[in-house]
């Protein structure tokens, strides 16, 4: 039955295009190869722009020159001091107080105060960080936690989304996402409220030079 539905949809679309093709032209696909170079916005200081973009969407930006300094920075943060249930997937930053294996039930993550997760790179134009499934024992980790800390290398900041997508490869991967700041909504009279269903606070910790 599904094959019939499939054929029905595809054939009616084909028929529509054939009967509707008065001009006989198929518009060409724009060349994207040089798009980023030619058009993609560039910033004098991508790290600084990333920090500004992140703050403008309600996120927090921290910088540390090395892992030791990073540990000290994070320890000062209220989200770290107040969190009792913590999962850290970044060695050296924060201590996990609960164990959750890949084979466990993600529902057990409920009540998680803080998740410290690794990010692959950041995007200066919008304060987003690319997070990959490989780095998460459960996809739900980044959204169930009350507070989120994402750790990236300060050198791994791209200028814009075109450069970002040039780096992404989904071969053998089934999930990844951009996270830009904390969860939010403005559905009640356009008043911005931070902390809708996901993290109430999102901090990006950039380590390096």
């Amino acid at each position, binding site marked *: 039955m599904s094959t019939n539905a499939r054929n029905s949809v595809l054939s009616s*679309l084909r028929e529509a295009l054939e009967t509707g093709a008065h001009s006989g032209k198929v518009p060409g696909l724009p060349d994207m190869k040089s798009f980023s170079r030619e058009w993609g916005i560039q910033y004098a200081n991508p790290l600084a722009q990333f920090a500004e973009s992140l703050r403008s969407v309600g996120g927090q930006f921290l910088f540390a020159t090395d892992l030791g300094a990073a540990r000290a920075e994070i320890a000062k943060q209220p989200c770290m001091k107040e969190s009792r249930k913590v999962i850290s997937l970044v060695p050296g930053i924060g201590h996990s107080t609960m164990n959750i294996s890949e084979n466990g039930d993600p529902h057990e993550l409920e009540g998680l105060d803080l998740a410290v997760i690794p990010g692959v790179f950041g995007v200066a134009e919008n304060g987003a960080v690319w997070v990959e499934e490989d780095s998460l024992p459960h996809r739900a980790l980044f959204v169930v936690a009350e507070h989120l800390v994402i750790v990236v290398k300060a050198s791994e900041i791209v200028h814009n989304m075109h450069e970002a997508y040039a780096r992404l490869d989904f071969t053998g991967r089934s999930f990844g996402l951009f996270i830009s700041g904390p969860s*939010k909504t403005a559905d009640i009279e356009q008043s911005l409220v931070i902390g809708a269903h996901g993290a109430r606070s999102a901090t990006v910790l950039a380590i390096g030079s």
Partner: protein
Amino acid sequence: MDHSKSAAEFVGNDARAHWHDQALWFVRVKRDRASGQVPEWEVLRETAAAIKAHTLAKLPEYLEEFERNAVARGIRVHWASSAEEHNAIVHGILESKGVKRLVKSKSMLTEECHLNPYLEDRGIEVVDTDLGERIVQLAKEPPSHIVLPAIHKKKEEIGELFCEHLGTAAGASDPTYLTHAARAHLRGKFMKAEAGLTGVNFAIAETGGFVVCTNEGNADMGTHLPPLHIACMGVEKLIPRMEHLAVFLRLLARSATGQPVTTYTSHFHGPMRGSELHLVIVDNGRNRILAQEAQRTILSCIRCGACMNTCPVFRRSGGYSYGFTIPGPLGSVLAPHRDAGEYASLPYASSLCGSCTAVCPVKIPLHDQLLLWRKKLAEKHLIPLAKRVAMALAGLVLQHPWLYRVTGKLARLFVRIAPRLLVYGPWNIWGRQRELPPMPAKSFREMMKGD
């Protein structure tokens, strides 16, 4: 349905209409600020329009490529020609897993198909998890805007609703307090859900995956916990390659709410371990639009809502005046495809100011499309008699210069000397809420000729 009759009710509450107007204009201003920060904004729009035009012209091939790649990733792909087929497929999947509790993130497609009542009639609890959608769900109303579903509701009204359904404090209206109450309430629903259903912002032919964008995180909360995720998409959501996502994602949130990107941009490329991921591809009349080459462009829409935020008619008449799943300029060009007779008034719910065209991130020439529909409706004789007669008379007058001059002279005289009751009689529709401009003694032509 008649837009002007439905709108009259909304407009009748003057203070409320102004409040709604301001609320939406505020969102338009945010869009302007955000787009102003991207020097290459117009290039992005051109590129997005070109990508969509190309994809629509080769839609069947891209759909087949998409399906191949999706299936190879373990995504189960279903096809539906109609809303009924879509609903039956979704229900079938849920029933086969014994699902009684479903959480949903925003999907205008499922609104179009009326999925919620279909599932509820069959004993499945459906919880809309986007805060705006949950609000209208509790109020038993449809969404009034595709991005801001509860924009028509005041915080006091939401407070009352939450007091009744969520047990919040009576009289409370602080948005932060109410949102946090909704967070707790919906967290419970997420934890107990047996399946999650989402829409699809973009489907990528090259990889067989799809992207869902939210600010709240409700699509992620709803799909990373239960062992079943059903995603529903219209055929037109397809784009050819991953690199094209950059173009659309840079345009979408800036156009919709004035943010550089949504908080979460989730790329689903396969099910979680031990989980199933189903995708339902739906036509439901889109092939008929595709067949009209001059109107095909309206399928490029990425559902940002910018046209609604800027439209002076939408801002002052509200989403419910359109009587269609999608309101505003976009709804006004989509609805007549579904039922030209029923929605014939919608292309006239416009002054053709062109603001919608100016803000559309994919450069749909919306006001040209509205005008095109007026032409088609006239050809199908679907315009009300009064308007047809008025248009015919106007045509006659404008074709004959002497008639134009005589009519003008008589009209100027009449308005100047006739009693007010006669001038502003029921035939003067334009004069119902406006004063006519003062009529000069001489026409421009007469002045030039020195009469």
